[in-house]
């Protein structure tokens, strides 16, 4: 006999998973995309992206509560029938595999361009994927533990850097709040893509101790992560000005470079920031990987998710290595962002609408 406890997630764990999943690789370059798209209105653009994500999040939670004890992989068939659901599931799984690979690639690119200039990109990508793979073999309890543990570790230093950077801020740079630029729609999708990680909640709602708390956890998780993104974009624009940000590849990293701790403990904070960012990337990769293997497990109806973990690894590595350069990579990421918008926002909204119209709902005592 082993001492085992049944795995249930508390509300705080749920929120932590959302926060650390949503905060990911994108925090480094996203001010650039936002400013390119909306100029000084970058903050507003981010806010709009959060709003769009909110729609997706609320429909996923509503669906989760409508079909207790099931994830989107399982209740999809009930709403739109088996063949359509099978296609949706396959798309979701492929999407998550590509998402994981692209995040790993983006991470590798940043590390190779800004920290370890002589290390081959394959090395950094494979290390990160391996760590995520090893963790993805673990059970849900460990999954929750890891996210809960890292969330404050990610939040605190980023907040500290942002707060310290405000001493160099020039509020005038933030105006006008609404700037008119032509590309606002396409960059809105790119910014929305940063929040796609919220979708993991569909796997987790069935495991919540009190499912009704999903609303609070979901909203507070997205709220905290969104607030952090807003703070970063505001401080970057306030410190550098919109025109300057357009010239920087990784504006957030530059922000950390420009900031120094009081009392001269550290001359600049970019390396410290990189280490926090590595942690944030790890949690995001871990969540996406976890989603991919668990979605596969639920779809194929196997008992164990672990056999998929190392099976997926070579494919992830292959996909991560597909783009030949940074430009191709960001083109790919923009494509993924559009697909992600359809799969994680439009699909849940449609599914919810169909479920309501057809009057489908899960068995009340399924949990």
């Amino acid at each position: 006999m082993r001492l085992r406890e049944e795995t249930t997630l508390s509300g705080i764990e749920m929120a932590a998973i959302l926060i650390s999943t949503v905060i990911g690789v994108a925090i480094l370059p996203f001010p650039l995309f936002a400013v390119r798209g909306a100029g000084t209105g970058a903050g507003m653009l981010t806010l709009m992206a959060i709003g769009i994500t909110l729609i997706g999040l609320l429909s996923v939670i509503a669906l989760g509560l409508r079909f207790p004890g099931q994830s989107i992989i399982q209740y999809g068939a009930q709403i739109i029938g088996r063949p359509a659901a099978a296609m949706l599931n396959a798309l979701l799984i492929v999407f998550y595999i590509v998402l994981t690979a692209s995040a790993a690639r983006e991470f590798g690119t940043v590390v190779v361009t800004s920290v370890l200039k002589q290390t081959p990109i394959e090395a950094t990508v494979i290390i990160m994927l391996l760590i995520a793979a090893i963790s993805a073999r673990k059970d849900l309890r460990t999954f929750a533990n890891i996210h809960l543990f890292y969330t404050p570790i990610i939040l605190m230093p980023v907040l500290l850097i942002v707060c310290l950077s405000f001493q160099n801020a020039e509020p005038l740079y933030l105006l006008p709040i609404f700037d008119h630029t032509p590309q606002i729609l396409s960059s809105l999708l790119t910014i929305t893509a940063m929040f796609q990680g919220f979708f993991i909640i569909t796997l987790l709602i069935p495991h919540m101790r009190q499912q009704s708390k999903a609303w609070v956890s979901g909203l507070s998780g997205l709220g905290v992560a969104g607030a952090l993104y807003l703070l970063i974009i505001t401080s970057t624009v306030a410190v550098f000005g919109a025109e300057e940000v357009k010239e920087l590849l990784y504006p957030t990293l530059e922000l950390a470079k420009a900031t120094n701790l009081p009392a001269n403990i550290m001359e600049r904070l970019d390396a410290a920031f990189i280490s926090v960012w590595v942690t944030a990337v790890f949690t995001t990769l871990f969540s996406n990987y976890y989603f991919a293997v668990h979605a596969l497990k639920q779809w194929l109806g196997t008992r164990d998710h672990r056999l998929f973990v190392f099976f997926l690894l070579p494919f992830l590595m292959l996909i991560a290595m597909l783009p030949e350069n940074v430009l191709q990579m960001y083109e790919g990421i923009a494509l993924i962002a559009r697909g992600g918008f359809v799969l994680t926002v439009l699909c849940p909204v449609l599914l919810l609408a169909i479920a309501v119209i057809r009057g489908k709902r899960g068995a009340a005592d399924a949990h």
Partner: protein
Amino acid sequence: MSNDKLQTSPNLNPEQLLARYAGESCPASLSQLLEIVRLIMGSSDDLVIRTFYIYGRYEAVMLYINSLVNQQITDQQLQSFMTLPEWLSGTDKLGPEALKQTLLNKTVHLSEITVVSRMGDLINMLLNGKTIVAVEGLGEAFKFGARKIEQRAIEQPQTEQVVQGAREGFIEQLHTNLSLLRYRLPTPSFRILICEVGEYTKTSVAICYMEGIADPKLVSEAENRIRAIRLDGVLDAGYIEQFIEDHHYSPFPQVMNTEKPDKAVANLLEGRIVILTDGSPFALIIPAVFGQFFQTTEDYATRFLQGSFVRMARVIALVFSLVFPSLYVAIISFNPELIPTEFAVAVAGGRAGVPFPSFVEVLIMEISMEVLREASIRLPQQVGGALSIVGVLVVGQSAVAAGFASPITVVVIALTTIGSFATPAYNAAFALRMLRFPLILIAGMLGVYGVVIGLILIANHLLTIKSFGMPYLSPAVPVHFRGWRDFLIRAPLWILKKKPSYRQSRRYEDKEEGTA
């Protein structure tokens, strides 16, 4: 007694012989009984077989092992067996059963005397230091305890020194150790369960717990794991620890050990289980989570501000001992721009004559520190002083003067080493000391990024492992806010009141309160 009429059976070893006769009842005939005893025990010269007549008329034999027995007590008892009481008529002939009752109830002055009827019990009792008296025709034997084993005095434990608090330490004898616990816990809730472990040593292992506080599932799990141990000899508590821990390949200890009875009692009151092993002064405490390894009983004995302050200092020391050298390597060789300019100049100046890259330098110094530390533990105290002087001079002064290491490196290594000694639990400090080396290596390869990767791997491992069902990092993760009152800080005792930390966090799953 002469043992020349020994029957030796060439085919069976003593253990097999014992197993063969274990279930048989004692033969009524004394000569048969002695024959079996001699067959099993062979020619051990400390086995004493003394034949005599009870009340001067009933033939009997006394068996004991003289190296285990208090001679005085056996002599006195021999007298009470032999002396014919005045009220017993000189001519009556008692039957075996009547004789047994007379002896047990009227003439033998012993509180602890019982009857054994199986040969296996008889031999085992004999080997455990009991004295056996067998009577012709009875088919049973009397057994009483007159055990005397040399033991050392109760001293202050060397591994856990305290400034304030109890100074008693456990010793090797199980019964003394149990009495040290029992006198602190005069309550019927304190329960002791004794198992025997070890094919040859038959070591008694006592599982101590508080009924009503400890989780019954935990108690039965501990018992199952201990009973499942198959080993020829158990010579120390460490043997038990290695069999009952959850993750054998983890560098982190999942069982805590202590030499202090007060610490054992404190843990019993928190619902943990204390396992005492005969022959070892170390008590094992399960389940053990990471937080416990930087806590001491002294934190509770002193005022809470003092206790909290010292505890936080230990946590910092712990973190230092793990990451300081690797961070140093990473910053010096990959990100020197992080350190303030004036200091960077000083560091560069110090490293001017050093031919190696910084991670080789740090590795060499770390390894020589480990060698010094190991040497100073094994040496007698008189030589130890000389060694530490040589160590300080060689490692500190001369290495720098010889251009072997930079002064900053020496400072870093010194802080790290001192930090690893500030952890009260030797085994936990050891885990972090071991992990320091891979961290230095990966820092030398990948810089700050490498250190972060290493730390993520360590943290993920810590977040995965459990000790007897307890997540290793609880109450930090999974969050249990009530447990935080006695984690990194030590809240005032009136807030802690009934020492809730472990009991509450055990039920973290089904308790909504305090979990947010």
